């Protein structure tokens, strides 16, 4: 650790990992509700409540992970201490309490009660996918994001300005401003859906993607030690992201009731949305190749090299597949979407946060990395369990989706939704097994941190 204020990243990382485990646990419960086995520990919670926890905790812990990563990277890249480390810790506790309140609200109350208690009828913003948090929680989250942006901006503006930290700054300031869209929920459903995507799309395919690219570039720079070539690649990747992502939003506008030209705009720009991932794979294999580096932390290298490959498959290929308007006409709102979002979120955002944690945590905890040591072997095993099981989960869900589309939409003898679900049961079983393996991977991943102490030789 070059700067003592980088230590504020540690609680963020710990919270991120803990919430990740909870999120996966509820994901497994969701998967099991697809198979009608009425075990009490599965059906104690309704599907929609478990899904609220699964998706909302994902967003929260990824934000924790990003914040931790950025707090770690910024002092080093700006070559000075964080502007206000105290504020960073205070915001951590505020954000954690917001997350826990939201989690408990979803778990213990019915959603309608939760909406009533938090006064949703006065300013309705709840009940939209990914934006289910009560209005007051959204307000708190916005304040946390503002404080965070302020802290980072002051550090960056007073220090050395490089490609990586300016990109991170742009990413989080963009994230904060775009979050304002969460408070706009007009009573016309079509208009509400149109502007909801400004938030979801420009976070997940815009500013978050920029943050992800900057973190990846930072880790690769740390592995290879060659800043110049890393920045050259980052320049290309960011340029491609910016040019494709803004009008790529069109792929959300095919069937919500807006003008039909969005089908053309969305299709054309979404085809090119695969390019950033293409260049990311090219980048890591080109750069990690050129150096004769003997980087000691093997797990980081594994994470950093696999992230672009998996992102290319999950976000790139699976996204591309059903982004073309004529294909999307059949695949929209089926299990195919679910397959894409699982693999895309895991490969792009979960993996980049875990890459950063894998790089920064040993340094934050003053641990010496021992290759082949127990802790490293655990992490690599966890990597393979999680990545392979997620790959197969996405594959099984995608196959279920193809079957669903075929029976429900493509033939003349279209069957009702519920009738089809029984014929997909085998795939749902396989998917749940994938979920169990993934959870085992997460447990092993957490164990890695616990055993690190006894294994620091």
């Amino acid at each position: 650790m070059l700067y003592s204020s980088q230590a504020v990243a540690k609680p963020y990382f710990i919270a991120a990992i803990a919430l990740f485990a909870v999120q996966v646990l509820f994901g497994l419960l969701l998967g099991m509700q697809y198979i009608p086995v009425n075990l009490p520990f599965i059906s104690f919670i309704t599907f929609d409540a478990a899904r609220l926890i699964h998706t909302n905790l994902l967003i929260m812990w990824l934000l924790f992970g990003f914040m931790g990563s950025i707090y770690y990277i910024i002092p080093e890249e700006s070559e000075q201490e964080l502007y206000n480390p105290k504020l960073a810790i205070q915001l951590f506790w505020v954000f954690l309490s917001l997350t826990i309140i939201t989690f408990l609200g979803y778990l213990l109350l019915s959603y309608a009660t939760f909406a009533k208690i938090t006064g949703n009828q006065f300013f309705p913003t709840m009940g939209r996918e990914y934006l289910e948090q009560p209005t007051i929680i959204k307000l708190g989250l916005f304040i946390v994001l503002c404080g965070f942006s302020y802290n980072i901006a002051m550090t960056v503006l007073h220090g050395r300005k490089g490609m990586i930290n300016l990109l991170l700054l742009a990413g989080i300031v963009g994230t904060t401003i775009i979050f304002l869209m969460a408070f706009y929920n007009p009573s016309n459903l079509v208009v509400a859906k149109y502007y909801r995507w400004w938030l979801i799309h420009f976070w997940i395919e815009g500013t978050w993607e920029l943050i992800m690219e900057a973190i990846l570039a930072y880790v690769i720079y740390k592995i290879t030690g060659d800043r110049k070539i890393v920045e050259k690649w980052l320049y290309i990747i960011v340029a491609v992201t910016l040019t494709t992502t803004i009008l790529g939003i069109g792929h959300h506008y095919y069937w919500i009731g807006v003008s039909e030209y969005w089908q053309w705009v969305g299709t054309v720009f979404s085809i090119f949305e695969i390019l950033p991932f293409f260049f990311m794979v090219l980048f890591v294999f080109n750069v990690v190749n050129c150096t004769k580096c003997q980087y000691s932390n093997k797990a980081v290298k594994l994470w950093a090299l696999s992230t672009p490959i998996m992102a290319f498959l999950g976000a790139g290929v699976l996204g591309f597949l059903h982004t073309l308007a004529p294909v999307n006409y059949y695949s929209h709102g089926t299990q195919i979407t679910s397959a894409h979002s699982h693999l895309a979120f895991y490969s792009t955002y979960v993996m980049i946060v875990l890459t950063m944690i894998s790089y920064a945590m040993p340094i934050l905890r003053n641990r010496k990395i021992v290759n082949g040591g127990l802790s490293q072997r655990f992490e690599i095993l966890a990597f393979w369990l999680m990545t392979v099981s997620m790959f197969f989960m996405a594959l099984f869900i995608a196959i279920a989706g193809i079957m669903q589309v075929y029976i429900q939409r493509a033939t003349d003898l279209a069957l009702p939704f519920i009738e089809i679900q029984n014929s997909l049961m085998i795939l749902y079983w396989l998917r749940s097994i994938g979920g169990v393996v993934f959870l085992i991977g997460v447990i092993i991943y957490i164990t890695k941190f616990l055993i690190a102490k006894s294994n620091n030789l």
Partner: protein
Amino acid sequence: MKILTKPKYIYYSSLIVFVFLLLGLTIHTMIVLPQQDHRENLTPQIIQGKLIWEEHNCIGCHTLLGEGAYFAPELSNVYERRGGSHGGTYFIKAWLKAMPTNIPSRRQMPQFNLTEDELNALIAFLKWTSEINNSSWPPSKKG
């Protein structure tokens, strides 16, 4: 030429060009939208229905215009699927009241205990949604 290869100019120019394109398309979309979404039919009852839809987290299981969860059927066309003006309202109301069915090994929908007014508002919202001109999606009546 050198100025063009500087990252920040490339970024600024692409951002400006595409943000303006997006804003232009958005303005045009919003101008022609009233012909697509039939907002002249929006009544306070339908707006109340949307709030009920949101406050009971219906997208936690269902999809509406394809967005939501994939655990239960698409509902943007449920009004037509269940009979439209010939009994659609009656069917959906009876359905919501009969939940949960408690049929073994079938997914269960919770009982939301909506009042008669709330049920009417929710169904009015679903009826309005089914009339949105959205390029005839979903491809099949079954959703």
